[in-house]
């Protein structure tokens, strides 16, 4: 009987434990566990960089398709071959991935900023400034990619139904975020702890911030800031090349979208349209005479990103020079502008010691006029900045949106002004504006 009683007691104890219905999720941390601890907030900074890499890749991939850089390989989905011909239907991954991934990056940047405030007392000043500068900078670039893809965009997203604002409102906001980033690191230099264990190895945060300040100053037409900021970007040394790294099993974004149903490759025309002697194709592609795409576009396969572990530059160092050259030209200093431009043209093996595209072209003969200079700058940007998505804004700025080009036609410049808004937002957010109307005649500029 005593045995029975003991057995019953043991059973009762066991059942009481088993009857607990409040089970925690061992697979994923909760909001509280992440946002209220230093270790959690530091992990958010890594998560932010991962999300940034994704949204940056999505932007460059999509923009390359609707401009004249990329086309689909034979196994690619129909929506990708449609996009390369300038047609992007609402709800397709092409239309939505850019938007959705950008706003995930923004969300994590906001989480990180909130964490840096909540845990102010527990973070040392240098680490805190690094975290905040990183959050400001990557949020700014994410929103900057949004304003280069969508006619209107949300900038305040910490609400249940974000409202959309035009570029006139969004661009100053992006630039202000970048100024905040610059101010953070100017006030307190990021700690060694931040630089060595939080920031992705191979990235120089001050250079990224100044390059982005120059980039958006240029888009805003603020030549003075574009010039001063581009001068702050390092031209030589390891800090001049900021690249995201992909140790296996991680895979470089472009390597990931090269194969299978996402498959894209570089249009052969990009290489064939280069000036004679321009060597930059070697950096990006392997010349082909046979590779054709899903809808018969002629292609060159990737060289740079064929290896899944290739690093992905956050920006190409010569972008700073090209911005500087353009700013100088617009400010009236044509000789200096031409000298800067020549330094890009003549960059050759050895050069500045960076692993970047090298034209190995001769300097420009004779002095260029302002329109010639601007045209040459944009030509150099085309070959120097492949896959960064920047070509789309270059087409808009020069009113060179040329409309959809069906194969076998080969597009030059941008094929459309904007992407349709994300269906994922439209389905749940009453504030999404109607999709913008594309121009009716070409070439055209775009309404902002």
């Amino acid at each position: 009987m005593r045995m029975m009683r003991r057995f019953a007691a043991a059973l009762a104890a066991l059942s009481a434990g088993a009857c607990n219905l409040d089970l925690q999720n061992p697979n994923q941390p909760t909001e509280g566990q992440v946002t209220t601890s230093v270790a959690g907030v530091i992990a958010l900074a890594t998560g932010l960089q991962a999300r940034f890499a994704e949204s940056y890749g999505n932007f460059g991939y999509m923009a390359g398709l609707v401009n004249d850089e990329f086309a689909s390989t034979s196994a690619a989905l129909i929506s990708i071959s449609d996009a390369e011909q300038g047609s992007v239907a609402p709800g397709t991954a092409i239309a939505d991935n850019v938007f959705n991934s950008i706003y995930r990056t923004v969300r994590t940047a906001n989480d990180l900023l909130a964490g840096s405030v909540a845990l102010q007392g527990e973070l040392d000043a240098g680490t805190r400034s690094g975290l905040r500068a990183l959050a400001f900078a990557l949020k700014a670039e994410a929103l900057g990619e949004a304003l280069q893809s969508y006619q209107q965009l949300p900038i305040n997203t910490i609400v249940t139904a974000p409202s959309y604002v035009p570029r006139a409102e969004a661009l100053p906001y992006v630039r202000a975020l970048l100024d905040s980033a610059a101010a953070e690191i100017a006030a307190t230099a990021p700690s060694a702890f931040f630089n060595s264990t939080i920031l992705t190895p191979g990235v120089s945060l001050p250079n990224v911030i100044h390059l982005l300040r120059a980039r958006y100053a240029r888009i805003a037409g603020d030549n003075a800031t574009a010039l001063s900021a581009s001068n702050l970007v390092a031209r030589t040394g390891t800090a001049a090349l900021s690249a995201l790294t992909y140790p296996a099993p991680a895979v470089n974004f472009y390597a990931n979208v090269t194969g299978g149903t996402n498959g894209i490759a570089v249009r052969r025309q990009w290489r064939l349209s280069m000036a004679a002697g321009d060597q930059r194709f070697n950096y990006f592609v392997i010349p082909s005479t046979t590779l054709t795409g899903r809808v018969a576009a002629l292609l060159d396969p990737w060289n740079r990103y064929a290896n899944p572990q290739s690093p992905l530059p956050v920006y190409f160092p010569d972008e700073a020079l090209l911005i500087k050259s353009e700013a100088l030209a617009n400010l009236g200093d044509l000789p200096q502008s031409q000298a800067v431009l020549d330094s890009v043209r003549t960059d050759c093996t050895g050069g500045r010691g960076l692993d970047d595209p090298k034209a190995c072209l001769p300097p420009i003969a004779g002095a260029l006029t302002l329109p010639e200079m601007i045209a040459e700058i944009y030509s150099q940007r085309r070959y120097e900045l492949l896959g960064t998505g920047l070509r789309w804004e270059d087409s808009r700025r020069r009113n060179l949106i040329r409309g959809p080009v069906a194969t076998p036609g080969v597009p030059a410049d941008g094929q459309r002004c904007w992407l349709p808004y994300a269906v994922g937002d439209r389905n749940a957010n009453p504030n999404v504006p109607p999709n913008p109307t594309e121009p009716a005649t070409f070439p055209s500029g775009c309404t902002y």
Partner: protein
Amino acid sequence: MTLTFARRGALVLALALLAPASLAGQTQTGTIRGRITDPAAAGRGLPDVQVLVTDTRIGTVTDANGNYSLSGVPIGTRVLSVRRIGYQPTTQRVTVVAGEATTADVALNVSAVNLSEVVVTGTGTATEKRKVGTSIATVDSALISRAQALTVDQAMQGKIPGAQITQNSGGPGGGGISVRLRGTNSFISGSDPLYIVDGVIVDNGSAQLADLGTRSNPQNRLADINPSDIERIEIIRGAAAAALYGSRANNGVVQIFTKRGSIGKPRFTLNTRYSTSELREQQPFNFYPFDAAGLPIARFNYQNDIFDRANGIEQNLTVEGGSDQTRYFISGNFSNEDGILATTSSRRTGARANIQQRLSSRLVANITSNYITTNNQLQAFGEQNDYGIMGSLFFAPTSVNFAPVNGVYPLPPALGTNPLLAIARIRNPQTIDRFIGSAKLTWTPLSRLLVDYMIGIDNASFEQRQFIPRSAVLGTAPLATGRSQSVFQGTRVVNQDGVTSYEWAPMGSIEMRTTAGFNHTAQRVRLTQASANGLAPVGQLVSAGSVFSAAQTDIELRTLGFYGQQEVAWNDRLFLSGAVRYDASSTFAPSERWQAFPKLSASFVAIADRPGMLNSLRLRSALGWAGSQPGLLNAYSQYISYVQVPFAGRPGFVNATDFGNPDLRNERAREWEIGADMGFLGGRVATEATYYDRIVSDLLFFRPLPTSTGFSRQFAPIGTMTNKGLELLVQTRNVDAPRFSWSSTITYAHNKNLVDSLAIQDFQSAGGYPNRIRAGEPVGVFYGSYAARNCATGALLVDSLGRYRRSNQAADMGTAAQRVAISGGTCNDSLNAVIGDPNPKWTGALLNEFTIAKKVRLRALLDGVFGNKIMNLSTRAQNAGIASNSKEYERELLPYGDPRKLPPTFNSRTQGIFEYWIEDGTFVKLRELSASYTLDAPGLRRYFREGVDLTLSGRNLYVWTDYSGYDPEINLFGTNAGGLQSVQTTAADRGFDFGGYPIPRVWSLSARFTF
């Protein structure tokens, strides 16, 4: 291989040891004799009546005058069971005295409807069918064994009105089967009912732990249960009947009871079966000997290499016996079946021991234990375009020569792999080791009081490996460097049930039964995955890799419920019951956790056992509520969580884009049913008819959130859905002559499903696929682009090249104004439309059984599904430019002038018209056809007391259908809501043919020996 034999040897040895010789020394016996009569026929003696002593194997059949005699009956109080087709079965208590003959005469009443059949229902206590207000279908062991099926769900096909049992794939070992009772009742929780084997809630997951084709379902885990161990299956179709299972009962309940053993000397039964399967018919491909430029070209038919005739064997050995104190049933089972897709196979080895022991006069213990090990060799199919065999077949041009050159297999030009390479080198083995067992104590302290406690466990370890060698897929992605994976999943379901019931008679002809009980279920699933890329040239294990990744998942779900039930019986004619279950699940938010599920039912036996035209009539009705819980993938949806995203080799966190729902509550179904059971024509016809009306509210799915917030969706209640339908069962005894009998069973079920309301926009139930959930339409309708038509004539519009115009393409239809002009009206104004309904209008089956001279039994089961649509994306893949291997594509290559010639790019245009790929999925299958013969020559009887039964049978022998694909029954989307490692599927996704595993035609020959 040695291991296998060793295991089988051990099994036989165990059986021999367990067959207890000690029980053989039976005590004294007596004799029972008497006469069975029909009072309606002036007391005429009834021939061919089965008379059995229950709990023993002693039995006989009456002679032409209705007389019988049973000798060797153990002494004591025994129960005679007397039954004959067309009569109400009955029982009678007899006291047997040692060495004496006791007389027991029994009168049988005409009836085609068996109201005395005992069912267990939801309370765990047995009750007679007449007392239950809902319709409960039963399938007994005879019906199961005659089906000659390898799995339980296969055996149930075509036998239960209101159950749509679909074989989604034709893989070995049963294939992937889904059971849908009374339509689709949930968007996300899968369609499968709750399976309970001997009181143990068992896992019927269909998860594939490695990618064997997204959403493809080679096998569901019910395949581990050996059908020949089964005594009876009860199918509880509706919420009203299942209310006592509370928050998990929305999809109905299938209760399986295994054999218990019977009193007497050990009896051995050996059943041996040999089977052979084949592809029913090949698909036509493009074998046109010229290419698009008109140049001669060689073409290849890879179906000849991919599909093989496949063989299988199955061995079953059982022994049963026992005494009043102890009864046992022990079985061993081995089956090995090859699949028709080359290199696929399924091997199952299992053993069972069921023991019942009387511990005292008032206490009985029942132990069941079942160990199974299943080994599968699989190949990816369905939506797997890197290395899946079916996808590779459909996507490869027939002009590609896949034969290896210098040992190197050439890869296809665009998608998929070389199917010959996959067959030769890609391997996907699975090993499932599973134990299902239960212990139950039944205590009857008073004759009217019953106390029951049971604990059950289903514990399975499931390993899935995958080996894809280097250079077996296209591209440079890591997969091209080879992949080896090992995924281990441990699943454990433990349930405890306690029930107590008390019977009392407060006054006169009123009897009551009061029942109370509890149930606790804990399910835990743990998974670890190791995978490697960059494989060495030799070695198939993960350790052969150079780049590694790993993952781990741990999920637990608990459900606790209490219930009470009050039953009232008046005069054994009117039966009323009311019950409520109070239920809680760990999945739901604490504030919403406890839910009450009530039920009410009434049964009235208006006519019973009356001779003449109308022999019996029972009316019944029930109303009940039930719920359903999210599956494993959504087990923790109540929490707002973050996910790990490593970057540059460092750990990182980001918000999960699925936003947690701190108010998550369960889906809730309310069902009302009304029905009648009738017997006609002097016991020749029995019918059961039921109408039901079910509404499920608070259906869970993903409510979209603005993606600009950085989230995408939230698991939340989003709508309501109804299912209304009619179920009909007709059993007839057409001929009942001494040397020939013929009986038929007809089932019919009609179900009308409707999504009544949605709180969100209509949406694709599986992202990227055309099944759609739309208010005002049946669940899962196909929605997409269509071919534009002339609004006045309805004729298809074609462009100048003779190609159809795609409704959603501006290139084809122009601006809105042009669209109206081209169409001659506004009928093509919407870009997309509902283009088909995958839900059947009705399902039905016809079973005919003939017995000739008591020795030959013939049976044929026709099983049909009517009025459903299928989207044939297999043929769409074939028609795509990169494949161009369909018979229709061939027509594009024909010379101009040929009347069958299609204009160039005709097929590339139809790629964008989803309506074009919709086909009628109506089919009738010759599901089962069998002939059995009992060899009972006296010489044989000396060794095998009951003779030797030989059966020749076939499954899925012939299909009548207009559907052009391999089989109208196959469906890409899975059996169940996805398990771990699976892409989320929903119960709405169906009617989707995309590279499925064809269902084979199976012939088998079996012999059954009893000694």
